């Protein structure tokens, strides 16, 4: 397995390299202290397995995972246990290692990696991958946003309005608002298209949350959201009109 290690601490990289030496199937083809360098490498090279630290400055492990179109098998690494649940919501994350990494625990990780490889091959043979697409996954119901270097979970159905504010977006849910550094287009792509609609260049709304509609605006809770002329027909099409 062509393997890379991504961790901002050199000492962690050395520990993983040493542990990986004991596993004949692993071939370390690169080590990186930033996510950006790893992405550049993966754009040009085939990688089968990645050991990925969650806590890295600027662009953390989950940010990296979200950018990958064809992710390899990933083993997440962190000094904290807090992110384990989130990590397992990704199909291609096969294990979660807590630092300092113990030799015995690393051996178990490698057993899981090998097992996941064989399961993956079997699944391809039986061509059953469409089954998993038919079942809504938990991760499709939630969105993780980076706020003050923490990944905060937002329940997608609870989102009422997303408003663009310069380089930021304001996500308003049933009970809370979040300000996140992101373009509106990025979150628009992540939200289910049958539930959310961009009604104005600065607003994406949850159609289920509309209370009433006037010609050029909609009311969601107490917020009056403008609707651009070009989006009015699409909005009407989406509504269950009598």
């Amino acid at each position, binding site marked *: 397995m062509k393997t890379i290690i991504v961790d901002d601490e050199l*000492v962690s990289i*050395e520990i993983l390299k040493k542990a990986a030496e004991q596993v004949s199937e692993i071939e370390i083809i690169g080590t990186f202290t930033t996510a950006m360098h790893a992405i550049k490498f993966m754009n040009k090279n085939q990688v089968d397995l990645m050991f990925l630290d969650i806590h890295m*400055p600027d662009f953390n492990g989950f940010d990296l995972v979200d950018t990958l179109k064809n992710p390899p098998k990933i083993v997440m690494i962190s*000094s904290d246990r807090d992110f384990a649940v989130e990590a397992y919501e990704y199909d291609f994350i096969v294990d979660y290692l807590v630092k300092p990494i113990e030799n015995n625990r690393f051996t178990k990780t490698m057993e899981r990696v090998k097992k996941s490889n064989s399961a993956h091959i079997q699944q391809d043979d039986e061509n059953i991958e469409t089954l998993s697409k038919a079942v809504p996954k938990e991760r499709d119901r939630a969105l993780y946003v980076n706020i003050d270097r923490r990944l905060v979970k937002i329940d997608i159905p609870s989102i009422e309005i997303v408003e663009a504010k310069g380089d930021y977006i304001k996500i308003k849910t049933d009970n809370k608002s979040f300000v996140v550094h992101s373009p509106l287009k990025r979150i628009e792509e992540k939200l289910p298209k049958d539930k959310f609609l961009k009604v104005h260049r600065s607003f994406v709304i949850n159609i289920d949350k509309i209370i009433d509609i006037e010609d050029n605006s909609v009311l969601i809770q107490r917020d009056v959201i403008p609707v651009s002329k070009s989006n009015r027909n699409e909005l009407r099409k989406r509504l269950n009109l009598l």
Partner: protein
Amino acid sequence: METPNHLYVKQLSNGDEKFANYLVEVMRTELTEDVGLYKNAMTRKDYLDAKSHVHRIKHKMGLLGLEKSYERANNFENGLRESDLGEQSYFESVLPIMIEFLDPNRKIKL
């Protein structure tokens, strides 16, 4: 106050003395950098930046068997998110102990 040890490094090295001493050297270099960056961030009162350096130092406490200090560093790291400096003095008291323990003249023998 806890005393650091090389139990983890020895166990990981699996009899490879050269690797054990190399790992300690890497740890020392990184710790010196981490501590400098941490102090700089605290001087600027940039607690979110300081938090990221505490996180890295916390890991090294774990590598040196400083379990209690690891837990308190974890509390300090979480507290910094809310500008809570309650664990600062304890955290900073452990740093010179770690640096001294990683003295380049103290070689590991396996």
